[in-house]
């Protein structure tokens, strides 16, 4: 409530300010009009006097007619002061009042020079109409007073100079002043209406400005909220992207760990059944008959079996050893595989934002490598078509997140796709306009055309286990790389191609542009 009151008061103050500005503009503009108009009417008066009564005569000699002198000097005096004020002090009430007075004095002079012709009185009414340009009732006060005073004085002492007749009633000035007041009435009504409209305009402008300011403030606040939300989304998307990679890594490591676990179980089982206990029992028996081992082996019923037992045990242990060596090799291989996966992950585990010179083909290979086990298990064929590119400067973490995400997306698409021949193609090329293009194409389930426009929207996904962050995050990252992410699909069941394009920032050595193709099954 308090804020609302303050806002209304502010708007009223602003409306008053705008009204004053508008009024001042009109005052100054009208001052300028009179600064031009008054000299022109003065020149017109001089020209008229020059035409009607240029000379006065005494017999055969002539001199300038006093009417011409009056039109020039008196008219100039009447004109000069208001015009000077209009130029030096525009917009002042005093200037307006002086102009109104001067304009009416000019009317009086012209009426006199024209011999009190009634037609010249129209100058009074025309001048009042011009004064109405000010939209200020106050200018009519001096104007009307000057007209009335002029008609009173001249009507009393020299009626023919103003009324055109010598026998006019001493009260005839009232009729003339009455007509002036008659016009004043309409002009004052017009001025009041104009001022009212100006106030309305000012109020509307103030309201509009207030509304605009509130909208701008709202927009700023909403923009800040949106930016904050976008940043939060970006962080979430990055975390989701990193989680995708981590999931892939853990998944792959988990798969390898399964193999290692199997190998370890086999080793444990083999060790458990290695015959060591039998050997220990046999050697114990042997120790008991060390004083006469020959008799024991030849005469004792159990001793007779001992040599054969040793022979069989040795054969069995040899076989076990070979199996154990194979399993240890497999275990070692699995551990090596885990080490490799972790090493690749460590390579991209650092924070993004660091631009460095990289070979994109290596990054693409690493991206495939991260998911290699899963791809192999799903029997997905990965084809690579790389154009020869120079090393470029890029934020490799962002690039990897995008590609890993696209590969993961493609993997799911081909797994759910209609064909048994699962294939993902990675293309690296450089279009002619100095950009780099990475395409990840698959022959998977494809994308419905209605989904093409919103596939990069946050939260949009067609997979049950999807969270809708991956492609949104990839698109954001592509923008951060100074490029963009696009998608093409011929429709459901016809695969899809995701295209990452960005500007080639740094160009090193360029080799031939032959396409290097490689296919991993």
């Amino acid at each position, binding site marked *: 409530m308090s804020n609302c009151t303050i806002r209304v008061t502010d708007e009223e103050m602003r409306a008053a300010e705008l009204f004053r500005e508008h009024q001042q503009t009109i005052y100054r503009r009208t001052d300028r009009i009179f600064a031009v108009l008054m000299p022109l009417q003065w020149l017109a008066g001089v020209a008229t006097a020059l035409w009607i009564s240029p000379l006065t005569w005494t*017999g055969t000699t002539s001199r300038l007619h006093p009417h011409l002198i009056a039109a020039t000097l008196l008219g100039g*005096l009447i004109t000069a002061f208001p015009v000077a004020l209009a130029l030096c002090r525009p917009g002042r009430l005093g200037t307006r009042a002086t102009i109104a007075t001067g304009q009416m004095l000019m009317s009086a002079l012209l009426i*006199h020079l024209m*011999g009190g012709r009634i037609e010249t009185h129209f100058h009074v009414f025309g001048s009042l109409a011009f004064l109405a340009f000010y939209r200020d009732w106050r200018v009519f006060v001096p104007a009307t007073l000057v007209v009335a005073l002029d008609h009173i004085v001249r009507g009393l002492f020299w009626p*023919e*100079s103003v009324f055109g*007749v*010598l026998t006019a009633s001493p009260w005839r000035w009232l009729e003339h002043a009455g007509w002036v007041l008659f016009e004043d009435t309409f002009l004052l009504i017009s001025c009041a209406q104009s001022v009212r409209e100006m106030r309305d305009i000012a109020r509307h402008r103030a309201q509009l400005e207030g509304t605009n300011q509130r909208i701008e403030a709202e927009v700023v606040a909403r923009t800040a909220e949106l930016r904050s939300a976008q940043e939060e989304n970006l962080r979430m998307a990055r975390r989701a992207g990193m989680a995708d990679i981590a999931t892939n890594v853990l998944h792959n490591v988990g798969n390898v760990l399964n193999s290692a676990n199997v190998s370890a179980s086999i080793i444990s089982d083999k060790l458990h059944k290695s015959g060591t206990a039998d050997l220990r029992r046999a050697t114990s028996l042997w120790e008991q008959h060390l004083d006469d081992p020959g008799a024991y082996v030849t005469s004792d019923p159990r001793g007779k079996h001992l040599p054969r037992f040793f022979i069989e045990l040795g054969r069995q242990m040899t076989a076990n050893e070979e199996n154990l060596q194979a399993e240890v090799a497999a275990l070692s291989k699995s551990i090596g595989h885990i080490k490799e996966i972790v090493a690749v992950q460590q390579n991209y585990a650092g924070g993004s934002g660091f631009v460095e010179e990289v070979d994109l083909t290596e990054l693409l290979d690493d991206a495939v490598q991260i998911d290699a086990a899963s791809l192999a298990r799903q029997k997905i064929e990965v084809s690579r078509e790389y154009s020869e590119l120079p090393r470029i400067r890029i934020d490799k973490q962002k690039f990897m997140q995008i590609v890993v995400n696209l590969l993961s997306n493609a993997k799911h698409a081909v797994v759910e796709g209609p064909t048994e021949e699962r294939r993902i193609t990675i293309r690296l090329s450089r279009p002619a306009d100095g950009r780099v293009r990475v395409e990840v194409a698959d022959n998977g389930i494809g994308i419905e055309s209605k989904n093409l426009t919103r596939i990069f929207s946050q939260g949009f996904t067609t997979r049950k286990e999807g969270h809708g962050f991956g492609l949104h995050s990839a698109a954001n990252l592509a923008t951060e790389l100074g490029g963009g992410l696009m998608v093409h699909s011929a429709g459901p069941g016809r695969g899809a191609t995701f295209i990452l394009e960005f500007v080639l920032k740094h160009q090193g050595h360029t080799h031939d542009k032959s396409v290097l193709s490689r296919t991993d099954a």
Partner: protein
Amino acid sequence: MFAADSLRSSFWKFKPSRAAGWCLVAAWLISVAVGLKWLMDFDMTPGAVGSPPANCPSAFVHGSSDARPLLIMFVHSNCPCSRAGLVELAGIAEANRETVDVCIYLRTSSRTSSGLETTSLWEQAAAVPGANLVSDPDGEVASRFQVQTSGHVLLYGAAGELLYSGGITASRGHGGDNPGRTAVLELLAGRRTAEPQHAVFGCPLFDPASPATIESSCPAQK
């Protein structure tokens, strides 16, 4: 150059105090009032009325039984103030076309009379209904009638007696109702008037060095 710029700048930035401003306005108004007063004085100052003869010189009298009153106006051919008088005369002549003879003597200069017919005052005089327009080089006729100011009107009765002498405007160049015109109209209507004379407003017909004198009889009327 610097000084001129500085002066110009000072002029535009000149900001008088409130009292000085009112003084300026007062000075301006007083100056204008003085100017208007000077102008009114000029227009209201009558010219010399001279001493017209009480009886029309014989040369201007018909002497016939159907003789009519004679209304004579003397006009300086270049006097702009007399336009108003000619307008008034036209009104009188129009109203009394059947009862009065009107004669206008246009005072010209013998040196510059050629091309007189092209002046606007001549055209205006020629347009007065029924008027006999006569060029009066060097104001010879005017001097015979001893009138000295442009716009002077003399009304002689049918018997040649002077009925009215003076102007028919109230001031220089200002037409409209006035005592002189009223007096002439009254006399032409056959009524007596209390004011058979009136001031004349117009340019002097003669140079100060050449006063009007009656040297010969009037020329014959038309």
